[in-house]
């Protein structure tokens, strides 16, 4: 079963995933851009997979192109809830 989507839960998932990709934890915030964090398209593909696995929400193609910041990614997942 997919986990319940809340902003807090998704933030925890995203914040937990990024360091696995080599991102410095102290740099992570809602306003940080993926570019600043050196998170590229392959990292986002992995992040999408983690989110889909946990919440059953798919982020594909256009979705990923639109998100610039960590907050964008969290908000997009939350907006797909339900």
């Amino acid at each position, binding site marked *: 079963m997919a986990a319940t989507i809340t902003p807090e839960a998704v933030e925890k998932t995203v914040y937990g995933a990024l360091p*696995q*990709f*080599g991102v410095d934890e102290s740099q992570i915030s809602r306003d940080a851009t993926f570019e600043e964090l*050196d998170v590229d398209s*392959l990292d986002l*593909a992995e992040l999408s*997979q983690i989110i*889909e*696995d946990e919440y059953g929400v798919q982020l594909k193609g256009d979705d990923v192109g639109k998100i610039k910041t960590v907050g964008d990614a969290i908000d997009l997942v939350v907006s797909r809830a339900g």
Partner: protein
Amino acid sequence: MNREIVVTGVGAVTPLGVGARTLYERWRAGESGIRDGVGAANEFEPTDYLTVKEARRSDRFAQFAMVASDEALAEAGWKDELPYDPNRVATLIGTGIGGIGTLEANHKLMLEKGPKAVSPLSIPLLMGNAASAAVSMRHDLRGQSFATLSACAAGAHAIGTAARMIQTGDADAVVTGGSEAALTPLATSAFAALDALSDLGISRPFDAQRDGFVMGEGAAVLVLEDGDRARERGATILGRLAGYGSTSDAYHLTAPNKDGIGAAGAMEAALRDAGFGPQDVVYVNAHGTSTPLNDRAETIAIKQVLGDGVPVSSLKSAIGHLLGAAGAVEAVATILAMRDRVAPPTLNYEHPDEGMDLDYVPNEARTLDVNGKPAVALSNAFGFGGHNAVLCLEVE
């Protein structure tokens, strides 16, 4: 070869440690990197050299190549700035199998957790050209880059092909070599099923009791440059790639031609390319796998081309068979040995086999007498599929 090809930097990651000198010096001293029947690069810790991101963006075989390339480029004096237009520097790293560890791990995930569990990094990590891509990106090398794929001849094929790139004018310099990381359950089981591996886990090339090869892993990278250009920039020249020869047995998928015809043809072609005769060769770094078939056929080939007086030894006795990396690792060790005028030993050699009576430099390194001349050596690499690639190396 008309344009002179010189080697200005070497690097290696092997079961004898990290570093080309470490490899050569330990081999010369008779040390073995084989433990429990496997030649693992246990001293290699990826994050000692790579960031977390670089490490997780690369299969182990690409990691080996990146670290070996750092060493080679540093020695060549390329670390701070490329001495050539980046568009004129090519990258060519051979491999036998590529990222099979990544393939196996993701196949397991797919079977256990379903297709959605497969990592998006799978293909970019497992592809056979991943090591070349990683080295090219790491050092901003923008000339052509790809991989040679010819089983256990891939490293030597890469180096020979790299030399041709410079000779034809397609590149001014090439970062080249071979890499392999196939100590995985599938690859090990598959070689065992072929009865290619030593049951006893002992690598003893040319010995009467040899019963197959020991698997190893690692990489070696060389910086090749046009000799004139290298001298102009004041580079230290480690040696010359004087000649290269390559043939195919066109005989059997795994077995060498028992008369060593293809192997002999490649050795002759390398000598012809270098403009040397058999009398010029002071040392042969054999393919010497420790399999019954290879070592006999190779002995016949060496005898046919060079007679029976030249010292012949096998690095595989100390590190096992590094498959697609073998030709490159052995070329690096050969260059360093020729600089010292030393024939490193064939370890574990105790029992002469009938009809195999070359000078295999058993168990102890030996000083070579070259009468004040440059040391000329051949480095042999032969692969499943009947691929033969031989490098002729000359060291002042």
